[in-house]
């Protein structure tokens, strides 16, 4: 008999996310990874500012709510003073790749032994659909109403590509949760990102391509289609850095 149950690391409370939003799936994958590794009692999660601001209510580990973009710095403070904890940040694209760029880049450069879960949905969700650092060229948002113009609003940030150039990063992979196959793969990647921390390998970041039907103005189904057709070619899935495979190839 197959029992589909709530992971123990996921709190038994209703999530506030909009219908069709993929945050709930990613929360579940993070909780499953924590359960599989049996580390909920020594895990400290850092919630961001953005749609997942209430993540502190959704995980059964100790949680800290950080200021906008500062989660990697807060995580550094936790981990450096308590090296036996398992510390993860859960951040959106505005949090990680705009206001928190310095904190992200330098946590990576220092090789902080942390796990970063990065939700890229190309938009500011909580504030109602403004342009994100990862918004696509041409993408219409409330602050790029004529479509993102590279000449005016600049070009999107490719986070995994950028961070994989830093020596302190052990593992950087871009995954997607648009279909069961990709969800199963994302789970393996997230689990590896936590395992790396337990094995003291350095910083692991998993970028998850996600949907925002409410602010994209699309149905959940159309949103998954847009993710596959528009986002995936621009933000290719794959492993951008993995010190494990680098060691094997040496």
């Amino acid at each position, binding site marked *: 008999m197959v029992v589909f149950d709530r992971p123990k690391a996921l709190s038994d409370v209703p999530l506030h996310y909009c219908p069709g939003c993929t945050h709930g799936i990613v929360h579940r994958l993070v909780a499953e990874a924590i359960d599989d590794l049996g580390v909920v009692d*020594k895990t*400290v999660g850092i919630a961001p500012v953005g749609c997942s601001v209430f993540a502190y209510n959704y995980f059964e580990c100790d949680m800290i*709510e950080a200021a906008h973009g500062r989660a990697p710095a807060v995580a550094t*403070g936790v981990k450096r003073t308590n090296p036996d904890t398992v510390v993860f940040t859960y951040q959106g694209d505005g949090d990680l790749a705009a206001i928190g760029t310095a904190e992200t880049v330098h946590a990576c450069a220092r090789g902080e032994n942390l796990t970063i879960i990065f939700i890229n949905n190309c938009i500011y969700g909580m504030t109602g659909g403004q342009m994100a650092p990862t918004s696509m060229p041409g993408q219409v948002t409330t602050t790029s109403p004529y479509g993102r113009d590279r000449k005016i609003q600049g070009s999107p940030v490719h986070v995994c590509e950028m961070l994989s150039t830093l020596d302190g990063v052990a593992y950087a992979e871009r995954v997607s949760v648009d279909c069961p196959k990709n969800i199963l793969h994302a789970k393996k990647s997230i689990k590896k990102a936590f395992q790396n921390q337990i094995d003291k390998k350095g910083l692991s970041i998993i970028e998850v391509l996600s949907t925002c039907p409410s602010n994209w103005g699309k149905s959940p189904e159309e949103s998954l289609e847009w993710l596959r057709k528009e986002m995936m070619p621009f933000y290719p899935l794959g492993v951008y850095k993995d010190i494990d495979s680098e060691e094997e190839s040496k």
Partner: protein
Amino acid sequence: MSNKVLMKGNEALAEAAIKSGCIHFFGYPITPQTEVAEYLAKRLPKVGGLCLQAESEIAAINMVMGAAATGTRVMTSSSSPGISLKSEGISYIAGCDLPCVIVNVQRGGPGLGGIQPSQADYNQATKANAHGDMHVIVLAPSSVQEMATLAGEAFDLADIYRMPAMILADGALGQMMEPVDFDARESREIPEKTWVTNGHGGKRKKNIVNSLFMDPAALEASVVERFKRYDEIKEKEVKYEEYMTEDADIVLVAYGITSRICKSAVAAARAAGIKVGLLRPITLWPYPSGALAKLADTVKHFLVVELNMGQMVDDVKLSIECRRPVSFFGRTGGMLPTPDDVVEEIKKIAGGIA
């Protein structure tokens, strides 16, 4: 027998932090406080601790927040422009009720200002650290000994009241060398930290460190609870020194390096037959309003001396409810008054009184 050693103010503060059990420091270089970080960078690895240079003041204060959330004694230090950058983090730390120690070795401002001693961050430290209804405890040392003693006191107060405590020093105190005795202070009893987020170990419910309240009534309740603690601090933790105030007609009010200049001025004015005293606030928040109000019963005139354009002077007027005239004398931008400059001001006032 006391064990006095000769040290720079910044280094005495750093060593006192270690002796208070703070072996984790997060900071960013800025003049004139860099000796704090440099001293800790040498010492902390040898005592099993960590001195981490952050990418910015913003990151440093957020690292402090993470460490503080685990119940770890932790400190950051900076100078005026850097403290402005830390404002955001200070507000979050206050809103999350976390203890930590923040050092501001003040320099002249605004903007990039200068690198010479200043007290121009008085209003920021005591009234406007950051956004929101909040305070931090502010301690103002006036000697190398107090750089050490008040550092220890700051850690204890932060832990007892679950809030940030600030050492408000200046470039002169940071750089000067004097003898210091690290055993001069008894540590206080600290309540158990039940609120920490360091992994629940399956032994307790999860803890959440958070300053977000979507329900306005809940946010109000949390702020009101915090202000009850502030009232308790105002009642129990005010510290000040009175110097030759018993028969004084004129009382100087000054803190930090300025209070030392004023002590010399008091002696010189007394030699000239003018009855002058000094009240030196040691805690700038909470402010010694009660002591000033009492002095106003007998003192004829107050003279506030600061290294700024007149910031604490407002608190003196409020403390004595403007019952006596309050004059101000200050230098700013990194300029220091001489005792003679202060005596000149005293003589002007004394002429008016006589």
